[in-house]
């Protein structure tokens, strides 16, 4: 390993460059693109995402169909654009409930401490020994395939990270001076909690929310691929990858482009997450 020989330790502790802002900016621009595609797919896509066109089956990328067509003659690019709405919806609904529930619970048990904290802690310990994907697909298997059941399953499991982050932050903040000061001033506990502790304690959870959204998209797409999430003919990216898996040898574009869309969406959220983490960190 080359790193061992160099006088590695004499090497620069270079000051951070202004990169964080750039990552955040690129992430936000990409996010804007995704949002526009999700809201106005009809203005961006040239074709219907679901109508069959037997004249145009399995065409490779060409001038009329930039990303080609699938075995039903549907335009891949148009389906990807319409798919944005589905996958953004997945990103939001797989994270929103865990975020709200986990953050509030974290603030509450972090503030109250004692038995409430211990009880939720034990429950969290229990939840995390179930492999996330396994538990989600087990729940989906019981409730039946589909996006709504997936959201229920994810909500039952996903709150733990938010609870941990917020609870830890509240515990630290509780010791900070203004909470003490608030108590001295005679503010009610709920006021201290909601007005002072929560707003300060929520920032790690917000940073994690971004990472979690990219994980949520991956999860939704994985279930879609396995046939347990969005159901065909919904233009969901994971479903689209699965649609093309039997054509990989002859029509690679069917799976490849939706997969790239997924990756791009994942990168978007993690860039924003990293950018936010840097921006919210007190010192570089």
């Amino acid at each position, binding site marked *: 390993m080359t790193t061992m020989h160099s006088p590695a*330790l004499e090497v620069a*502790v270079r000051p951070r460059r202004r990169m964080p802002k750039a990552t955040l900016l690129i992430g936000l621009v990409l996010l804007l693109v995704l949002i526009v595609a999700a809201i106005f797919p009809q203005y961006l896509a040239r074709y219907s995402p679901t109508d069959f066109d037997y004249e145009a089956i399995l065409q490779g990328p060409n001038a009329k169909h930039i990303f080609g067509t699938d075995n039903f003659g549907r335009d891949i690019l148009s389906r990807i654009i319409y798919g944005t709405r589905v996958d953004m919806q997945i990103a939001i609904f797989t994270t929103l409930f865990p975020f709200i529930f986990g953050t509030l619970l974290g603030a509450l048990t972090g503030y109250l401490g004692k038995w409430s904290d211990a009880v939720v802690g034990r429950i969290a310990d229990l939840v995390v*020994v179930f492999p996330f994907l396994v538990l989600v697909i087990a729940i989906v298997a019981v409730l039946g395939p589909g996006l709504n059941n997936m959201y229920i399953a994810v909500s039952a499991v996903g709150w733990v990270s938010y609870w941990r982050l917020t609870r830890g932050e509240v515990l630290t903040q509780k010791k900070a001076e203004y909470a003490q000061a608030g108590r001295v001033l005679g503010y009610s506990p709920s006021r201290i909690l909601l007005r002072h502790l929560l707003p300060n304690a929520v920032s790690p959870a917000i940073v994690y929310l971004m990472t979690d959204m990219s994980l949520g998209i991956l999860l939704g797409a994985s279930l879609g691929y396995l046939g347990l999430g969005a159901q065909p003919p919904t233009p969901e990216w*994971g479903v689209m990858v699965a649609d093309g898996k039997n054509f990989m040898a002859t029509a690679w574009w069917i799976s490849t482009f939706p997969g790239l869309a*997924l990756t791009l969406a994942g990168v978007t959220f993690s860039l924003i997450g990293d950018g936010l983490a840097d921006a919210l960190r007190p010192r570089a």
Partner: protein
Amino acid sequence: MHSSYVIRRLLQIIPLFLAVMVVVFVLIHFIPGDPVSAILGDRATTENVARANRELGLDKPLIVQFGFFVNQVLHGNLGESINLKVPVLRLMLDRLPVTLFLDVYASVLGVVMAVPLAILAAVRRNTWVDSLIRAVFQVGLSLPGFYVALQLLTLLGARLGWFPIGGYGVTFGDHIYHMFLPALTLGLNLAAILVRTLRNSVIEVLTAEYVDFARAKGLRSRVIMTRHVLRNALIATVTLLGLNVGGLIGGAVITETVFAIPGVGKLMIDAIFGRDYPVIQGLTLVFAVLVSLVFLATDLIHARLDPRAELS
């Protein structure tokens, strides 16, 4: 490591296992409608349903049913697969080694990729080398496992013919060869997770005062890197690997499905599509137990490696 610590950790796992059984037990009771009809599927004649209800004790109060369930589990009886007509435990024991092989293989590949690159990124932090490594793994983290699997399978398997496009093989050499692409799929994802965290923890060590003290002692860089930095990186790696075992099992479900590998992950998916509830229930239980055991082992190894661990 004090034996009292080990004993304490071992004792903690008993209530955890009990709680796991509660969850798995409750899970099946969420099946909409009549669970027995669902379990019996096509064979759900009125007569069959009534008999099964009696046999499974489903006409008894819930708490009695749970006692029955726990008793069965403790005797190694996880029920029988509806579709395959084989005891779930047998089914699982046959296939678990395949999945364990895949996950261990993937961990090895992941560590081999991640540790040197994380150290390199940390040593050259905030340079283009660091940015490149981080960017590549940032993208790696966003790549869906099924997609990577599919592309590797098509490209290196089908098109170039370098690797077989499925199966598990017979000999150990076979396994290594057959499982390379699946393990690489999982390993890449694991490496992405490891690089992110390891880089930061190595930077923390590199800038620690004790590294300056080691330099002030006149130790060579190589000695400082291996004794002071790698040792700490190792501790962080072990912990991360342990925490990620759930991810590896979930990953195995997807990868085994794409590569048609006869492991427990594939079994789970087959069971779900076959509505084979006893298998789903048994697998969920075993996975959770497996993860708790790995968490326990991680804690104990961590306590061995890091003398401060027992304090917290």
